[in-house]
């Protein structure tokens, strides 16, 4: 089975899981009459389940020539995963650690992760940009726009 065919199957399974999960959650809603707060969710859940079946059918019918025709160039998933990890960590620690410190850490690490392979990692410059950006954004929004960005450890 080609990668594209596997992906299309996975998409179909995802559609079905979302549809069935939503159907289950909808069934827990209190009912008052035929057209109530659960009516639209029931319609949506049914549509999603039908779409899941249609997607699985389309994936099964996908012929080898179509599947291979859309193969794209290779992507650097290691960088994507590192970036995802950094973004999630940034969001998770923003409140306890605080915006100024967490932004410096995030920017510094993200600059390093995204640096092109043919370029040298310039720690000093990255550190300076991270500190200046964090300070400038924090000061601007905290004092010019009265936005209470979390200060965390600096409190």
């Amino acid at each position, binding site marked *: 089975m080609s990668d594209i065919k596997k992906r299309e199957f996975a998409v179909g399974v995802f559609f079905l899981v979302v549809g069935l999960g*939503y159907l289950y959650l909808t069934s827990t809603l209190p009912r008052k009459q035929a057209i109530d707060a659960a009516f639209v969710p029931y319609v949506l859940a049914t549509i999603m389940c039908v779409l899941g079946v249609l997607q699985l059918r389309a994936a099964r019918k996908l012929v080898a020539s179509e599947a291979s025709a859309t193969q794209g160039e290779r992507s650097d998933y290691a960088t994507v995963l590192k970036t995802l990890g950094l973004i999630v960590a940034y969001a998770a620690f*923003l409140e306890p650690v605080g915006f100024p410190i967490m932004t410096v850490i995030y920017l510094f690490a993200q600059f390093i992760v995204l640096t092109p392979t043919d370029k040298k990692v310039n720690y000093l410059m990255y550190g300076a940009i991270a500190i200046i950006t964090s300070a400038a954004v924090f000061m601007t929004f905290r004092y010019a726009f009265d936005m209470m960005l979390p200060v965390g450890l600096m409190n």
Partner: protein
Amino acid sequence: MLSLFQQGLEIVFTVQILGLIFFGTVVGIIFGAIPGLTATMAVALFLPITYTLGPHAGISLLVGLYIGGVSGGLISAILLKIPGTPASVATTFDGGPMMEKGEGAKALGVGIAYSFIGTLLSIFALIFIAPTLAKIALSFGPHEYFSIAIFSLTLIVTLATGSMVKGIFSGALGFLFSTVGIAPVDAITRFTFGLTALNGGFDILTVLIGLFAISEIIKVAENVKTEKNATINTVTMKGFGFSMKEFWEQGWNCIRSTLIGTGIGILPGIGSGTSNIVAYMVAKKQSKHPEKFGTGIIDGVVASEAASCSAVGGAMIPLLTLGIPGDTVTAMLLGGFMIHGIQPGPLLFVSQGPLVYSIFIAMVVSSLIMLVCELYGVRLFIKMLAIPKHILLPIILVLCVVGAFGLGNRIFDVGTIVFFGLLGYGFVKCGIPQTPFIIGLILGPMAETNLRRGLMLSDGSFIGFLTEPISGTFLALAVASVVLHIYQNHRVKSPVPAAQH
């Protein structure tokens, strides 16, 4: 109308607002010019700044970003042969070859002039169509709004490129997320899992920032390490670089492309990203010399730029008159309106007439600034293209986080943009279009609320939705668009199995 214009002029022609429009347009052009950054991202980033500005100033800034962002894409499309935004994809087809032939300055001049003309004509269309449409829309009730929402949803699904199943799923998923929170009419709390933060549902802006900005950053991470630096060519501009004879020769091409762009802009959910390609294809088809398209002729640049920029005025028509965004940037603008407690729709023309006319004037001023800045500041924008992405993108992410946090001073919203960023990236990888999701999210509550209200008006009978003339027409159009799409798909696919066996 004249007094409203006068009030609009008084609002816009202040140092603060003119300065904000200028700033917005220049930043918008920079965002448009740098591949990977879009007008949607520019509006998302600058929303937190508008929190503290008044509605007139805030919306003028966003309008400047929108107009600059759509037009700016032509710079990289011509100089790098890489479209800065989806709005300038077709500009690369002839702009790139013109650059290679040593006609870069002429290509830029043509692109700048016709993107200005396209924008301006579409703003005039907006000024004349929107108030009339708003007057008609004032008589709309729940039946009409429900049918328009359904029509818009089916239209975006059928017009979305790629798989129709995925398009419908995307729209349905957006609708699904709109059901989180307190239900309309009977106020039952749905799908909140006990989280009070979810009682009000998902904020449109957090979803948009996540789906279009965060996912884009993750997507760029796929290739940024191996991306080779494109050679940036410099050009010296002397006027527009084309003759009056060429200008008159392009007259019909420009008008036709502007009409296509404005028309596509009016349709919900699709805008300049589609209009430039459609107009280019039509121009090629109707040309006396179609074989020359793609070799570096001004006809292609004119069609693409006039159409992409005219979608701006078109997309504002359904936003202002019905509260339905014409494209992703206007969806973001809808959020910007809501921050200032303004609900776009026909009543806006009655209750906030001066604001509406100040938007019209801000758009005209912004397009003039765009013309002058692009013509005389092209060297500055070329320099901006050299900013390394591995430095720029993380800073943009930080600003997105600030924007999301600023909506309600809640870390919950930061988590939301990360969640929708991951979802958006998943969409990209699975070939699921993102725009139907946004339209589903925005139009979902409109459809559900008006369905419930409509049924209450007609004692629980669905017949009212069919017998009301406008409502019935929109429902019939919705069915027709789906049937037509299925028929067209069937016609395209039918010879394939025979050929394979």
